[in-house]
């Protein structure tokens, strides 16, 4: 899966499933402070990522993931690893 394909899937579920305003979805957006993804939302992000990308997010791997672009990169690294 290319970077662009990952970005497209992630952006789509942020809008369609987490109902985040499209205009807020920019690479540098902070997941928590800008996109409003709180701890309960994150439980749903784990489910959605598993559904679209086939792996389970491990919270300890997310400690350095603060922005959306870092989140794309994290998914890409997991995809490449598999």
């Amino acid at each position: 899966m290319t970077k662009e394909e990952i970005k497209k899937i992630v952006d789509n579920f942020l809008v369609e499933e987490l109902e985040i305003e499209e205009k807020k979805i920019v690479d540098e957006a902070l997941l928590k402070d800008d996109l409003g993804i709180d701890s309960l939302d994150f439980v749903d992000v784990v489910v959605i990522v598993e559904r679209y990308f086939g792996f389970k997010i491990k919270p300890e791997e997310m400690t350095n993931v603060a922005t959306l672009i870092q989140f794309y990169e994290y998914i890409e690294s997991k995809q490449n690893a598999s």
Partner: protein
Amino acid sequence: MKKRVVITGLGIWSCIGTNIEEVTHSLYNGKSGIGIDPLRTEYGYRSPLTGIVPRPELKGILDRRLRIGMAEEGEYAYMATVEALKNAEIDLEYLEKNEMGIFYGNDSSAKPVIEAHEVMRIKKDTSLLGSGAIFQSMNSTVTMNLSTIFKLKGVNMTISAACASGSHAIGLGYLFIQNGMQDLVLCGGAQETNLYSMASFDALSAFSMRIDEPDKSSRPFDAHRDGLVPSGGAASLILEEYEHAKKRGAPILAEIIGYGVSSNGANISQPSDAGSIIAIERAMKDANISSKDIHYINAHATSTPQGDAYEAIAIDKLFGNSKTPISSTKSMTGHECWMAGASEILYAILMMQNSFIAPNINFETPDEYSAKLNIVAKREDKNIEIFLSNSFGFGGTNSVLIMKKI
């Protein structure tokens, strides 16, 4: 001194209509809301008969966080409550600044439990259940969601008492206001209608098999009844202290004047005439009235041979001399179970407001017990000043409410 308790708002989401106007029309015209769900047969049910309740679409109305913990019955209850609050002239701004409590009847939330189990069976990982499953699965799902959405700050709890849940919820709201503990309480009952919710009830062979004629399948008190039809939705009522309602300039629709309870202390599924009589007598004592003062009885009668017979015996003992008009609105709605005790109060208030008695449709041939009662088979245009509503549930829980025109 005890305070007076009135109803200032009504809201409904049911198989005979999804607002007060539609439901009034259905009650007046004896319209059935029962149909066939073919998926039930495929799933393994004995009977595919059910009340056909539309699913509300809340996307775009409520944001995701407020929706995600709501099971189907919570969605029904939300829609009913929006209507009830509007009719009571209460908005969110008022609720931010004033205290309202909630007692809502609910006794299951099967679908989210079963769906969560399916995920666990396949994935074997709780972290893939999502954040909403816990809030949807608990019996108190309706009250936890409504209290969050509507910013309720008073008493907050779910009443689980089988098919009397909704009635007890109103009864408890009445007691809290009567004793000065609350001025405003949202009361009601909700019942899920999904495939998973009624399978274990179908297992008892308690459901009608009159599959070729769904609108004739629920026939309380009729000699040819062959079982109940499961149904659901939600009914919301705004209970308010009388002076508080007057001060607010709220529309006052009816007054609650009596609540009587009892437990049969006997069989888990069989009703009891003796237990029913105790609850009815207690409600009349609380209301300080006698049987001749009651103009209409909304019977619990679900269309099961045994349950209807026991209720008929009880009613005949107490109301035989006054020949009080009786109907079971379950003939049109089916058995709305956890919701029924609340919805049937709402149905009877609509009759009282519009001066008619809704028909007990499909009552064609009396049996030896119902022959002694004054069952209204065709709508009667008639003034109702006081009515009584019976609700009985598994485990022998009995709840009786009496309401008065105001």
